[in-house]
């Protein structure tokens, strides 16, 4: 994966990137930070899922045997007991949370830059995500 080193841009492109960065270092810094956040989030997610899969194999659990439903209260005990479900669910939560973390980071970045419209959009996106969680939990109950 090339998340941290995007495949080696040519000298001209990277040179141009530097030129643009000097014109708007704040925006370049924000995008760079978000890129790093997405890369790290992806690797953490995949790492947790990989640990879960290894533990599944160790416990002799077949993937088509039907996994346990998501239960937040079991997450901690499952992780402590090194049960695969704990790592799998934490990994899946990390997958889903990574884009939301990107929006939260954008919110902070745009707010610092004084871009109120973009900061407001970031808040609204996070509200939509929160509403999704709320509606799903309400319907689940």
């Amino acid at each position: 994966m090339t998340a941290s080193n995007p495949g080696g841009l040519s000298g001209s492109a990277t040179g141009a990137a530097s030129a643009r960065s000097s014109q708007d270092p704040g925006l370049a810094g924000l995008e760079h930070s978000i890129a790093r956040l997405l890369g790290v989030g992806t690797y953490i997610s995949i790492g947790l899922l990989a640990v879960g899969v290894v533990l599944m194999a160790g416990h002799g659990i077949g993937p088509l045997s039907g996994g346990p439903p998501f239960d937040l209260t079991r997450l901690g005990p499952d992780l402590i007991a090194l049960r695969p479900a704990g790592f799998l669910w934490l990994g899946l939560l990390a997958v889903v949370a990574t884009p939301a973390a990107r929006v939260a980071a954008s919110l902070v970045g745009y707010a610092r830059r004084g871009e109120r419209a973009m900061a407001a959009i970031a808040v609204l996106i996070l509200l939509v995500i929160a509403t999704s969680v709320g509606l799903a939990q309400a319907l689940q109950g």
Partner: protein
Amino acid sequence: MIEGLLLLAAGAGAGLFGSLLGLGGGILIVPLLTLGFGLPLLTAVGISLICVIVTSSAAAGVFLERRVANLRLGMTLELFTACGAMVGGLVAFLLPARLLEGLFTALLMYVAITMVRRREASPAEPVGQTLPGAGDESEREAAARALRPPAERPARSFVDRLSGPEYRVRRIGFGVIGSVFAGVASALLGIGGGLIKVPVMHVVMGVPLRVATATSNLMIGITASASAIIYLLRGGIDPYVAAPTAIGVFVGASVGSRIASRIDLRVLRGLFVAILLYTAWQMLQRAIA
């Protein structure tokens, strides 16, 4: 154990194909899980959403690093894709599985026909979700273009701020409508929605194709998250199946992005169209059975 390896291989194949052909893996993951492993359609869609988020996050990071994706435009439109995805995620649990299978059949047919029509097009014209290839020439050109000294036009209005140095975003309203549809389609069918977003941004809104593709990739993460959360909390995601499939897709897409420039995509595209048509036939039989 064997089943786990098969899921890993299936995910890797979907990620590899998707990456090489510029389509998201979602178009293949759902049929693979339903037809190949006998999973219910909703579970397959939920797992596919997880896979497209993983690929999107990895790709979006690279696109942002290269400064090809338009973060402001992506965030503005993803507010509406997320709304569409939230509605789609809620509706998906109310619709009969046969209707969703019928919709998926239509999607497969549409993609197959689109690929036949684009047979002569350059391989560097992805329409869906893809990981950026290393050293992609057209991408470097796009990056260089985007990084030239800013145009004379000062960024005053909100639309100016959404635009790039060499293009001005237009018809935002169409972009909003397209984004809502893309979000609904993503949530119902487990796809990234790039099939809708990229043409809308490029053709209707005047965004250069490479920027539209990168920005669409960026948006997929939040779009799919808004509905994946609903699937996750309502029992629509099986962690035992999701994990090996997502890892496979991640690996396959990563490999695909590195070897894309060395593969003759004409043969691959023909094979892919055949697979899509066969899958569409199988899905149709399932829908009307």
